[in-house]
């Protein structure tokens, strides 16, 4: 009798140990962050990006810039977001950015990121989203019904058109012009026309481009309101 009770006790002890060790191993909850040593050193004193603080509306630290604030290097865009504005930009808006290999290369990179999913790497409207039928009816840049100019390319990136959204929050002015250069080249390739000529007068215009880059670097985050 006594022996069996001892056995039982042993079994209980063993099972407790097993359960406890299982609990220790499995208690990491992937749903909540881990413990920290010395929280004060981990958590910032100031307001952290995307933080939650009572002082803000909706406790949301991510805010729009104050109304009327102008980011450094920002230049006003004169054409309004309407059909008339698009037509005006199509006719009038000209590219001041000199065509250089660096800009074209950068334009291609950016095009691959933002445009190629729909418009395709060749600009023929056969991007992966089109092939997978997530989007339908994306036209080729060489479509005869569309009179695409550098001004219209820039304008459409700025405001979007029909199903296409605005890319003003993801790119800045310089980047949009770089993309424009690449799109012009893609269109020329599709139509079998010669590509953009590289600007020869490098000195004077390179300076303009330099100004643009410096100023534009700041504008990114503040443009998100568009």
């Amino acid at each position, binding site marked *: *009798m006594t022996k*069996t009770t001892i*056995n*039982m006790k042993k079994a209980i002890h063993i099972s407790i140990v097993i359960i406890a060790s299982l609990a220790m191993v499995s208690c*990491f909850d*992937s*749903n*909540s*962050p*881990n*413990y*920290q*040593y010395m929280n004060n*050193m*981990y*958590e*910032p*004193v100031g307001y*952290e*990006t*995307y933080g*939650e603080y009572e002082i803000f509306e*909706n406790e*949301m630290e991510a805010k729009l810039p104050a109304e009327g604030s102008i980011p450094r290097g920002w230049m006003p865009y004169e054409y309004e977001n*309407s*059909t008339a504005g698009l037509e005006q930009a199509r006719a009038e808006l000209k590219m001041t950015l000199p065509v250089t290999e660096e800009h074209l290369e950068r334009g291609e990179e950016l095009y*691959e*990121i*933002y445009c190629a*999913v729909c418009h395709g790497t060749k600009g023929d409207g056969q991007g*992966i*989203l089109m092939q*997978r*039928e*997530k*989007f*339908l*009816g*994306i*036209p080729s840049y060489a479509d*005869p*019904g*569309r009179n695409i100019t550098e001004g219209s390319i820039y304008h459409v990136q700025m405001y*979007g058109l*029909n*199903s*296409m*959204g*605005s*890319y003003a*929050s*993801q*790119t800045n002015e310089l980047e949009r012009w770089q993309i424009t250069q690449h799109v012009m080249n893609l269109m020329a390739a599709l139509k079998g026309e010669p590509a953009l000529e590289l600007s020869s007068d490098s000195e004077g215009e390179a300076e303009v481009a330099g100004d643009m880059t410096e100023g534009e*670097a700041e504008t*990114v*985050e503040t443009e*998100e309101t*568009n």
Partner: protein
Amino acid sequence: MIKVKFRNLPTQLSLLLLALLLTFSTTTYAQEESAEAATEVAPATGEGDAAAGKTLFNANCAACHKLYKKGVGPALFGVGDKYDKEWLYSWIRNSQELIKSGDAKAIAIYEEYNQSVMTAFPALSDEDIDNIIAYTYTPKPEPTVATTGTTNVGGDGEGPTNNIILAALALIFLLLVVMLILVNKTLRRIAEANGVEYEEGEKRLPIWKAFAQNQFLVFVTSVFLLLASAYFAYGWMMQVGIDQGYAPVQPIHYSHKIHAGANQIDCNYCHSSARKSKHSGIPSLNVCMNCHKNIAEYNGEEDLENGYTKEFYTNEIKKLYKAVGWDENNQAYTGEEEPVKWVRIHNLPDFAYFNHSQHVTVAGIECQKCHGPVEEMEIMYQFSPLTMGWCINCHRETNVDLKGNEYYQKIHEELSKKYGVDQLTIAQMGGLECGKCHY
């Protein structure tokens, strides 16, 4: 989060397939009928071929028009009833001309849709347009939701799953153990009652006593125990503050697997500030709406095991619409927004500085190097430990990308000479200095 509803995959799938088959066969039937109906309604010219119309529709119209729902332009289901054919021909070939000519219908529709200009399609022939109009009579397919729902309910009772089998096995095992103990007990009792003698083995020393008397063994065991507990204690203490594997439930179930994996959208498309800012920003909802203005339903692959059905994903898209205040029926923003409270996963302690643009743009490192195979993650989790040792290891192993960096060319050359190497690592450039990250 997600209830596991769909346990009985094989049986369900076959039923589902059957249901799909049935629904599709009926729709094709219906299509033909409606095509006939279309020609009856619009008797002006010959019949259209709905199948050819579908191809044309998808290639030319679908960017702005949907059949049963407003898009950029009106829903086109049964458009042949609303306008006569001649009018449609001239509208589709050049809508602007029609508007300028002062056609009342044309001006009305132009004003109704915010004066957005419909692209001219001069290349479409009368026959092409007839085909497209025939296609617009395709009736809306019956939602397959209902059928899948019923098959699931029906299939719930059948076929035990792995979990149930395991539980049953465990129960049987437990019963066996209990029975063994009981049998042992009763046997002893019977033995005692009958006066049967059995060896108790009392004369031998209990094993723990023998162990306690052997001092060497006690010494070795205690050393071993101490070492083992130190090892585990060290391991436990080192994981404090590390969130590797942290995968919180987000307010909207956003699948990186679908977006970055199946649809191959570049990381920078949404996290555009990673290219030029300290933070890789959480995209504002306008970025989602760049695509989801058009994509209101999920039609991709399902993962029934985990309950990720089409309805589930579609419902998540509706959550996005609610948050951003998008009225799907009117294709317009209502202005009633509800910010989404995303849960931040990767968070370095305040005393460590990290800059995304420096790694993404300057060094050209792939996002996956630190964030792991995000394109395979249905639920985003922290892949790397983000510890200092982890950072430093990479700085020791990674070579500096010197391409297009003329400004620093000279110092790179001198440093290479100093260390006697061809390729500088980040560490040799000072990537291990405390002040680079802690200040």
